[in-house]
Each structure stands twice: as C-alpha cells, then as structure tokens.
C-alpha cells in the first residue's frame, strides 16, 4: 500500500482527475434512471404536458453525453496514470539493482529480479487500474445512491441503507475469511510450479531411477491440493454473490410493498419505483464487478511486497563520496590488499581471511585454489562488487572505499568466468570499455585474444550479429571475445577470473604468450584452477578454505606448499607417470 501511494504521489493531478471522472461516471449512471423516473412521474399525472417531458428527456440525454464523455476521458487518464506508475516502478527497480553488491543481488537471483521487473509490475499495474475502474466506484455508488434515495423518500432510503449495510457486512466477513486462503493459494501455486519444474528438468534422473509413478503422485497431490483450496474460496464467493443478489431482490419486493403507502401518503411517486430499483441494481452490479477485482488483489499485494523488498533493500555498498580520490600515479602497485578479510553478511564463517598482497605493473599475480576456496570472491573485492569486512584495498595508494565506484572501475578490465556478451554486433561489444577505439585496435585485440581467425571467417566480420548473451558463439569463442573486449579498454589492471578454462590447452598457451607484451605496463591478475595456466606467474597465491596457504613462484611453492603440490599432482602426475 505504502509502495503504491509513494508511486502515485508524483502523479497527484492525474489521480485527482481519475477520481473525479469516476465520481462523474457514477453520478451519471444514477442520474439517468432518476430522469427516467421523472419522465414517468410526469406522464403519470393526468393531463401532463408533453413539452415538459421533452425538457426532461433533453436533460437525460445531456447527462448521458456528459457522463459518457467523462467516463471515456477517465478511462484514458486512468490508463495514463497506471501505465506511468508501472514505468516509474520498473525504472526505479532497475536503477536500484545496479547499486546492489554481488551478494545482495545474488540473494534475490537473476530470474526472480527479472520476474519482479516484468510480470510482477504488470500485475500491480493491472490491479491498480482495476481498483480505480471497478473497486473505487463501489463506495461512491453506495453513497450517491443513498443520497438520491433519501431525497426521494426517507423510508425508501432507510431500507436501501439497511440492505447495503447487510451486503457490506457479508462482503467484509467473506473477504476477511478468504484473505488467508488467498495467501495459501498463492503459496500452493508456487509449490505446484516448483514441483512441476523439478519434474521437467529432472526428467532423465526420474526415468533413470524409475520414479515416474511416485513423481506423478507427487504432482497430482499438488494439483489436488490447489484445486481443493480454490474450490473453497470459490464457494465462499458464491455465497457472497448469492446473498448480495438475494438482498437486492428483497429490496425490490420491499419497495413494491411499501410504495403504495408512501405514494398515497404523498412521500413518493409511482415512477420513483423504477429509479430506486435501478439504484439498487446498479449498486449490486458494481459490487459484483468489484468482486472480480478483489480476487486478483492478493496476488498484486504479494507482488507489491516483492517490489518493496528490492526498493527498500539497503545496499551493502554505496559511494561514500562523490569526490574523486587523489591517486599516486607513480605507484608501482596498482592494487594492494592490506590484511583483507571478507565474510558474507549472513555467514558465520569468513570466506576470505588475511589477504596481503600487491598487484604490480608488469607483473602477473595468480590466485589458485579448489572449488569453494574463495578465489572468485577475491575478484569481486577488487572491483568492489563486495565490500571488505576487515582490512582495506588500495588503488594507486588510495583506499577504494574513499572514491566513487566509477573511478575504481575505470582502471580495471574484468573477464568473467562465464563470458557474457551483449546483443548487438561484435564491434559494439568490443568497444564496450572504449567507445573511441578504431577498427585496427579492435583487430589487434582480437589477434591477441586468438579470436581473429574465427571473426575473419564470419561473413560480416566485426559487424557480425551477437545474440543475447553471445549464444550464437561457442563457449571458447565467447570467452576469447570477452578477453578481446577487456584488451580494447587498455586498463591498468586486468582481472581474468577463470577466463581460460573454456579454452583448449593450445589456445590457452598461445593467448597467454601473446598477452605478455600487451600487458607490459599493466598489472595482471589470473584466477585459475589449472596449474598450467599460472605456471609462469610472478606471484602465485594459493588459497585453501579462504586462507592464503602459500605465496611465491611455482618452483618455490612446489617445495614449500603441500596443498599446491597436491593440486599440481592431481593435474599432472598421471601424465608424467606414463611417459
């Protein structure tokens, strides 16, 4: 609710007009039968004047035109308002996610954030539209019809008040009793989807283990459960529906029954019967429309909660200053780790402990370790995708927390473990870090990245189309293109996070050789699992369960670091045994 209000606020004017037009619409709907009743009353009087009737009819037509125009304008403004709210929400979400750290974002998950950005907001927007168009008119029509009814006759107004009161109470009770069911229903729907998805993605395993029967049972249980709860909810609404219908019918009877007394007593006219019955019918009609909206509300509220969850998330990392920090241009070390430890916000254990090293210009620093040793986390700390828990990291002598994130990242080219390319052309992708690069610079980078041959073989070369994520290229090709992209940027620090693993050994070796002259003035960090990739690094840091257990050159580590030796053996021993 708070979320919706805060997004409606900037569009106050539109809100005002939407509400105004809804009210005009409702008044129009009620004033038409009122005029019709007047006409009947005029006709009922013996010796009636036809020209007076024409005047009333003109009024009625005018009312129809005015309220019709207002309703259509209202529909337009309402669509404008709700689509704007949806757009604002989407922009806000996207902007917000950019400020989240890697672990913040991971706690939501890519798929979930995409769903929230797209379909959740579509749901909210639709619900908001329906609320304005169908839910909001209900109290309005209740009030206006009561006012008009009381104007006609106090007694009739009183009866209508009583009936509407009963309906409101019943509606309230049904809503309240079904609200928790709706929540349950949503959960069951999620569960159903989850189990189903498990069945689809796990089809090989299920068949391999002969579990078809039990999986079918599991699915059918979920389906049955969902259907059972839905039916319960539907039944409650059916009851509400019938009670409302019954009450209105009773009202009609009461009107007929009492009208004789009231008319003879001079409080009421015969045509007013039509008017007052029509009021009640319209109120009922609007109420039934509103019921359909109410069915969709719990889902929309859940979506709101999911949106708020992102928007209210306080990111673990934010720029503490807009001012660029003073860098020491002569510093030999581009990036320095001083006693860095890192722990995820919700974890008890440290992921990384006591890291102390420098990445110097012209040198290659390698980080090696098994799965879960925290290798990739080191890269995320370097880019300030995650914030150090203890210690500090310096870029050219300045603490990276004391500069805008942009300043830090200007100096770095980062190549991910899983290469990601954007849809567009190869050239667009390569110029990602350096829009001013010339074509020859691009070819140069491709040559070093061992990607020249296959790009040249493409009919459109640099202008070749790249699909989203680069899916029209093989894993190795994507990886080489992303390496070329990093080279085009010409940064002071390269981070290759397991970037060579998708390449075969020959390409890996050729690429690393070509990299050496290219990165003479820059610092290079290679994170790897394969020993052969990092054999010649100037400084190898061996990570084991988050802690550095060895640091030095290959030969030194073979002697001094048992874990390094173990990794080395597991990758090479058998081969050497055989020759």
């Amino acid at each position, binding site marked *: 609710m708070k979320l919706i209000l805060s997004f409606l606020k900037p569009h106050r004017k539109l809100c005002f007009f939407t509400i105004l037009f809804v009210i005009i619409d409702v008044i129009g709907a009620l004033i038409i039968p009122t005029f019709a009743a007047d006409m009947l009353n005029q006709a009922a009087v013996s010796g009636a004047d036809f020209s007076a009737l024409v005047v009333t009819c003109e009024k009625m037509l005018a009312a129809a035109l005015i309220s019709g125009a207002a309703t259509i304008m209202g529909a337009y403004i309402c669509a404008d308002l709700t689509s704007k709210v949806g757009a604002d929400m989407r922009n806000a979400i996207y902007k917000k996610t950019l400020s989240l750290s890697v672990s913040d974002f991971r706690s939501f998950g890519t798929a979930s954030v995409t769903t929230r*950005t797209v379909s959740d907001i579509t749901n909210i927007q639709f619900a908001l539209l329906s609320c304005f168009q169908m839910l909001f008119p209900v109290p309005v029509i209740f009030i206006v019809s009561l006012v008009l009814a009381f104007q006609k006759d106090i007694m009739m107004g009183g009866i209508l008040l009583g009936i509407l009161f009963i309906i409101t109470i019943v509606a309230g009770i049904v809503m309240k009793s079904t609200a928790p069911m709706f929540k349950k229903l949503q959960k069951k729907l999620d569960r159903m989807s989850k189990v189903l998805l498990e069945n689809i993605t796990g089809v090989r395993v299920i068949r391999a283990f002969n579990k078809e029967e039990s999986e079918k049972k599991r699915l059918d249980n979920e389906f049955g459960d969902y259907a059972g709860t839905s039916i319960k909810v539907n039944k409650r609404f059916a009851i509400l529906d019938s009670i409302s219908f019954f009450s209105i019918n009773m009202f009609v009877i009461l009107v007929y029954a009492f009208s004789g007394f009231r008319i003879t007593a001079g409080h009421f006219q015969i045509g007013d019967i039509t008017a007052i019955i029509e009021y009640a019918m319209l109120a009922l009609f609007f109420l039934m429309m509103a019921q359909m909206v109410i069915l969709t509300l719990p889902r929309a509220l859940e979506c709101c909660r999911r949106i708020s969850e992102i928007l209210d998330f306080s990111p673990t990392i934010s720029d503490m200053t807009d001012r660029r920090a003073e860098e020491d241009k002569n510093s030999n070390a581009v990036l320095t780790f001083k006693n860095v430890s890192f722990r995820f916000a919700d974890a008890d254990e440290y992921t990384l402990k006591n890291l102390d090293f420098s990445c110097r210009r012209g040198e290659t620093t390698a980080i090696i370790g098994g799965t879960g040793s925290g290798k990739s986390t080191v890269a995320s700390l370097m880019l300030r995708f995650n914030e150090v828990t203890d210690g500090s990291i310096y870029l050219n002598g300045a603490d990276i927390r004391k500069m805008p994130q942009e300043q830090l990242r200007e100096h770095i080219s980062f190549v991910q473990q899983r290469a990601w390319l954007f849809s567009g052309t190869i050239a667009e992708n390569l110029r990602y870090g350096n829009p001013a690069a010339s074509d020859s610079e691009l070819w140069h980078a491709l040559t070093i990245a061992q990607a020249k041959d296959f790009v040249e073989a493409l009919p459109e070369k640099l202008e070749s189309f790249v699909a989203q994520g680069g899916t029209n290229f093989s894993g190795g090709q994507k990886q080489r293109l992303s390496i070329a992209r990093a080279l085009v940027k010409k940064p002071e620090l390269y981070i290759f996070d397991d970037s060579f693993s998708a390449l075969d050994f020959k390409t890996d070796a050729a690429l690393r050789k070509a990299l050496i002259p290219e990165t003479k003035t820059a610092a290079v960090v290679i994170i790897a699992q394969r020993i052969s990739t990092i054999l010649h690094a100037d400084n190898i840091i061996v990570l084991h369960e988050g802690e550095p257990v060895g640091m030095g050159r290959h030969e030194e580590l073979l002697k001094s670091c048992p874990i390094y030796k173990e990794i080395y053996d597991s990758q090479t021993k058998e081969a050497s045994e055989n020759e």
Partner: protein
Amino acid sequence: MSDRKNIKFDKEVPENAGKTALRLFSQLKNQRVRLIIVGICIVFYTVLNVFTPYYSAGVIDHLLTAIRNCVATGESFSIGNGQLGKEMLSLFIMYVMTAVFYHFQAYLMASVAERLILTLRKQISNKLNKLPLSFFDGNKPGEILSRVTSDLDKVSETLQTGLLKLIAAIGTLVGSMAFMFYYSRLLTLIFLAFTVVSLLVTKAVSKKNLECAADRQQALAYLTGIAEEYYTGRDVIRAYNHGQESIDTVNTAVNELREATKKTDFLTNCVNPLIRLLSRLSQGVIMLIACHWVIYGRMSLGVAQAFFQYINMAAEPLTETSYMINSLQAALASAERTFNFLDAKEEIPDTALPAVLKNVKGKISFENVSFGYSPDKILMKNISFTAWPGQKIAVVGGTGAGKTTLINLLMRFYEVNGGRITIDGVRTTDLSRKDLRHNFGMVLQDTWLFGGTIAENIAYGRPDATIDEIKAAAKAAKVDYFIRTMPQGYNTIIDNDAANLSVGQRQLITIARVFLCNPPVIILDEATSSVDTRTEAEIGKAMKKLMSGRTSFVIAHRLSTIRDADNILYMENGNIIEQGSHKELLFKKGAYASLYYSQFA
C-alpha cells in the same frame, strides 16, 4: 540492441475454436449430473429473471389504480387480500425463487471449473511420463510450465465467471428482447438500431485493441529480453562503468511498453462506457416516446416502467457478451495449447510380454547401432562395441561428438533407428523400460535435486533405505562431513535451485544417490566436471570402489580420470573413430593421443 522481429508470444485466438470447445466440454463427463442441475437452475433463473418485469408491469398498473382510488376516496392505502395482494405475493415468490436458483447455480459451479482443470492437470502429469525425451529437448521448461499453470488458470477463470454469465446473458438478452417486442415493435426497433451501432463500435474498437495488445506483447517481450540480458550481464555493466547507459536503454524500453500499455488499457476500458453511452441515449429516446404514449393512453405506466427495466436488462448483457467473447477466445486458445501438449507424440510403449532379467552380469553390446534425432538426419552410423562384465568403458570426444547420446540410447531415452543394444544378450527393447533402467546407476553433469530433505534426496532411488545406509552412502561419496555441518544435518531441506549448496556439493549428493542404489551398471556423465581436481581425486577413490566389479561407462572431459579404462571410445560427429585401451590408443598416435598430449603438455 536485440533482434525484435523474432520475438514469439502466445496467441490469443484459437486456431480451431469449435473443436477445442467440444473437447473441453467432453472433459466434463464426470460432472454431468452437476452440470445438468446447474443448467436447469440457469434456465429457471433466466426465465424468472426475464419474466418478473413483465409481471411487475401488471402489478404496478394495479398499484397505480389502487392508489388513484385511495386518493379519490380518501381511504388509507392497504394491499389487502384482493387481487393486488395476491400479485404482490407471487412477485415476492418469484424474486425469492430467482435468488434461490441463482444461488444454486453459483454454488454448484464453484467447483466445476476447478475440477475440470484438475482432470486436465492429472492428464498432464500422466503425459509427462509418456513423452519421449526429445520432447523435453525441444521445449523450454518455462513453456511447458505455462501450459500447466497460467494457461489452465486462464481457462478456469473464464469457465468459472464467464461461461455461465455468457449463457445467462444470452438468455436474458433474447428473453428481454422478446418481451420488448411484445410490448412495442417500434420501441424495440429503436433499441435494436442503437444496438447495431454499438456492436459496430465495439467491433471497431476490439479490432484496434487486438493490434495494440499485440504491440504491447511485443514491447513486453522486448523489455523482458533487455531485463534478462542486463541482469545476467550486470557484473560486466558495472565493471565497465556502463550503469547510466544501461539505465537509459531500460528507460526507453520501459517507456515503449508504457505507451503500448496505455493504449491497450484505454481501449479495453472505453468499450463499456461507449456501449453504455449509446444504450443511455436509446433509453432517453425510447422513454420519451413511451411517456408520450402513456399520456395519450396508448401504453400503461406499468408497461413503460417494465420496458425501461428490459432495456437495462438487455443492455448489460450486451457489454458483458462483447467482453466475454474476447476472454472466451483467449481461454480457448489456452486450452488449445494444453490439448496440443496432451496430443504430443508419445514414446513407443513397452513390449506386451517383456523379457525378465535376473542377476544381471553387465555385458552390454552395441551392434550396428544407428541413430539420429530425426530419421532424415542420421547422426550415428553402425556403431558396435561390447562392454564385458566389470569393464570400465570411457567415452571421450569434443562437445557434440555424441557421448551423451550414446548413454541416452543405452538407457533407452531415445529409440535407435537401426541395429540393436543388448544387456546380457537380451535386446533392450525386449525389456520393460523400468526393468532395463533398474540396472543402471547414473550420475549426470546437470545435478538434479528435488525439494525435500538431503536424506530423501540421497534415498531417491531407494526410498526404503535406512538412515544408516544413507549415511554410509554419503560417507562413500565424501559428502557426509559437509552434510553434518548443515543446520539440520540430513534433515536439512534443500531445493533444486538451492543457493546453500555449491555445484560440487550438489554433485556429491547425486553421487551418494547412486552409491545407495548399488546397481550392476554405472554411468557417469561428466560427473565430476564441476568439482576441482583435488576433490575429484578424492571422489575418484570412492568411485573406483563403486565401479569395481561392475560394468561402468564414464564420460569425462579430463582425461586423467579415464586413463585406467579397459576400453576408450573416441567419438567424433556421432561416430566412434578410435577404440582401445589408453596405451593402445597412445601408441596409435591418432586423435586420442593428440587430445591427450594437448591436455598434459
């Protein structure tokens, strides 16, 4: 930046509405009695609903006479036991009955749609087990999922609220028009004229609306594409300081969607007011004429009043019907997609009299096997090899060489196009699939865990296993220590997309699963590709234990793990181009040897 022409989205119009509707209706067989009662209720409800204004016309006329009499004689008004009193009572009964019938149909109908959907969903879960694996290769999980969830929910929603209303609406429309016609042909014709105009307007707006809806779908798909792309490539965007540019691109896509949404929503919401406007105008004109007739005694006041009620009664279904037909169409389109799924080609059924295998030794032969994912594109040609009981067979080769296909054929996930595969001399197609697969323990590259406890996941192939057996299997797979550090140990609930497990840990759990099953043949499809070499060496020891005495098939990327295989099959483009032991193949200096040296250079 992305290609916008190839975006696919679900159609809103069914291809064969009649056939789909009939088929949907035939699914209601088991609810026939309920439906008949509902149908009777609707008929009575509609008839009463239409009849009451007619009846009330007479009542009002009598009422008016009575009132005039009272005013003239100065007596106080009373309904009394006379004609008027009886009429009032019948009117009361009619209204009560209308409400009762309304209640019955609403209450009974509350379960009809959901039950129908449940029947369909159960058919789907049954179907899932009968579909060949190739179906799952060709269809995205999300698409199958939406057949079961959103598509069927749409059908249910429409059936629930819509279908009955549509029937009742048509009945009411026809009925009230009949009474109107009975009262006055001229007035009815005026009403009809306005109706025709409003139908034309509706049609024009709906047509425009469909176009706009298509635009919106396109804009939505485009935004989804961008969101997926940018969220997945988030790290790259941030590392290259492209935040602002990406915000601008997202803004553009969002605004495009906003415009399309605004148009569609407006058009959807302006149809009803337009129809209502026209019907109100017709009411004005008709009332004027009717009142004119009342004054000159050509029509009674009660009839004029009834006529007014009938106009309202006929106008409302008109708006409802136009709205309903759209959503009914969309629902039928959804139902059609579900039926298409249910009609998808199924696996060849098991043989009627399957052979029974006992005490399997594990001799497996491929004899001149040919296979292609489609018969006109044969991938594998005449493959032959034999795995003797207890042998370790390694399958190596590049991506797309057909390694996994080989395993899929062995498990009979796919049918061979030629030749035969035998286990202990028995053709695999002569066995029931269940019996065949019972002999294999498989660990796949894609780990798959289901929502449940770790213990349940390990015991997947043997739900009757004791906790000690489960623990022993976990120990053998080197995962026992890790499980014990989890909050609830073996009872920790995990998910298929569990964030609390690393890829390696998930893999170990699936390995434990096979340990527990103890099958005569083991298949490892890149089972350790996601764990680091050190852990791999650890698991390797356990694997060795698992494989000893059993026939095993190992697909591996890292050749270090398969060096000790009895027979290595080197595959390329679906065919085995070299086979033999490690030493033989190295000696041959062929494709295997060069691959091997490239890894250990």
